[in-house]
């Protein structure tokens, strides 16, 4: 088989997805045998103009991580789409917005204000903010435009496969590599993970117990055998796709939903609200108020990794 041409790119991301690809350790040699890497900013020196010069559909597979929140990221996403036969939305930021999409609870103006003017480490008396075009004595400098909304890759271009995870686990990455090696990719549109919920693959004891209090993670040390949700901790397992190997819940930490909604769930947060409402013991109004008070940050918890694919997508800008 001729060697595949592989591209990797990061948009609004942390680099963790790129490092996860390296975490497959010696298996990376199999990847090197299988494919030539034609673009990978974290590791190799190819520039945007090199990619631009490639013929359309000349890249066999592109693993794209990171969300889309600027004109540059959108431009590169479109460019890599037209250059690639198979585009993979790689990692939770590309699939659901990820942590960067928490910014959808704020606005571009608020972010700029905080980062460039108010932040105590800044000295910016003239309140200069980044501009898309600046004239300097020697010529002109340009910067991409920052969008108000953080989008997923699939909200910008069509995508063949989704690999969730923050970052995707070694097992899932190897699954992708093997599928490429044996030319046995699943049907287009597939998510490479489980179709079931995380609760399905979690072996904690579920006793169908009601809870009378929601605890914050620092308030109790949970029993390592029993379901975390039934101990009053907000665990997102019931509204989250399995396939991670229950990494967090195995170390006594409640799931935060980085694998996104499971097949058939339209809105991850709404699903969790109904899960909690159904196990919280309430006898009247005060109990409901108490529950609501114990839940400190519903939007930032239930959509921790999935704001961009939620039903509401962002905070509605207030009319002025």
């Amino acid at each position, binding site marked *: 088989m001729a060697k595949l041409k592989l591209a990797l790119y990061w948009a609004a991301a942390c680099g963790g997805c790129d490092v996860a690809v390296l975490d497959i350790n010696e298996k990376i040699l199999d990847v090197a045998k299988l494919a030539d890497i034609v673009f990978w900013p974290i590791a190799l020196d190819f520039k945007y103009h090199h990619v631009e010069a490639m013929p359309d559909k000349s890249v066999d597979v592109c693993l794209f991580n990171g969300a889309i*929140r600027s004109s540059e990221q959108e431009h590169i996403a479109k460019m890599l789409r037209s250059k690639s036969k198979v585009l993979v939305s790689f990692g939770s930021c590309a699939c659901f917005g990820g942590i960067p999409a*928490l910014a959808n609870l704020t606005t571009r103006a608020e972010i700029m204000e905080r980062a460039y003017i108010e932040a105590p480490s800044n000295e910016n008396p003239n309140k200069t903010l980044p501009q898309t075009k600046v004239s300097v004595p020697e010529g002109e400098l340009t910067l991409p435009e920052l969008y108000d909304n953080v989008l997923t890759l699939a909200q910008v271009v069509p995508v063949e496969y989704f690999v969730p995870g923050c970052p995707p686990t070694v097992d899932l990455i190897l699954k992708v590599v093997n599928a490429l090696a044996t030319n046995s990719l699943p049907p287009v549109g597939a998510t490479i993970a489980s179709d079931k919920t995380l609760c399905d693959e979690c072996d904690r004891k579920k006793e169908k117990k009601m809870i009378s209090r929601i605890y914050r993670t620092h308030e109790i040390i949970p029993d390592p055998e029993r379901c975390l949700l039934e101990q009053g901790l907000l665990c997102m397992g019931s509204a989250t796709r399995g396939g991670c190997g229950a990494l967090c819940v195995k170390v006594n930490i409640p799931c935060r939903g980085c694998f996104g909604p499971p097949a058939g769930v339209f809105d991850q947060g709404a699903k969790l609200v109904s899960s909690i409402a159904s196990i919280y013991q309430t006898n009247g109004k005060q109990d409901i108020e108490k529950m609501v008070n114990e839940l400190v940050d519903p939007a930032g918890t239930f959509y921790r990794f999935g704001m961009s694919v939620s039903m509401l997508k962002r905070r509605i800008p207030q009319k002025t």
Partner: protein
Amino acid sequence: MKKITIDPITRLEGHGKIDIFLDDAGDVANAYLQIPELRGFEKFCEGRPVEELPRIVPRICGV
């Protein structure tokens, strides 16, 4: 004046772009480094419960 643009800067975490301006003799007249990315952790961490931050801020840089 001639401009050389290096975009993106590679082999590091994060996005960067360098514009180098050359004068008529071909010497470097000035160089600018710009960071074409901002995610806004400074802002969106506000309002999140403090015990949750250890699960949010690692995504500033995962390298």
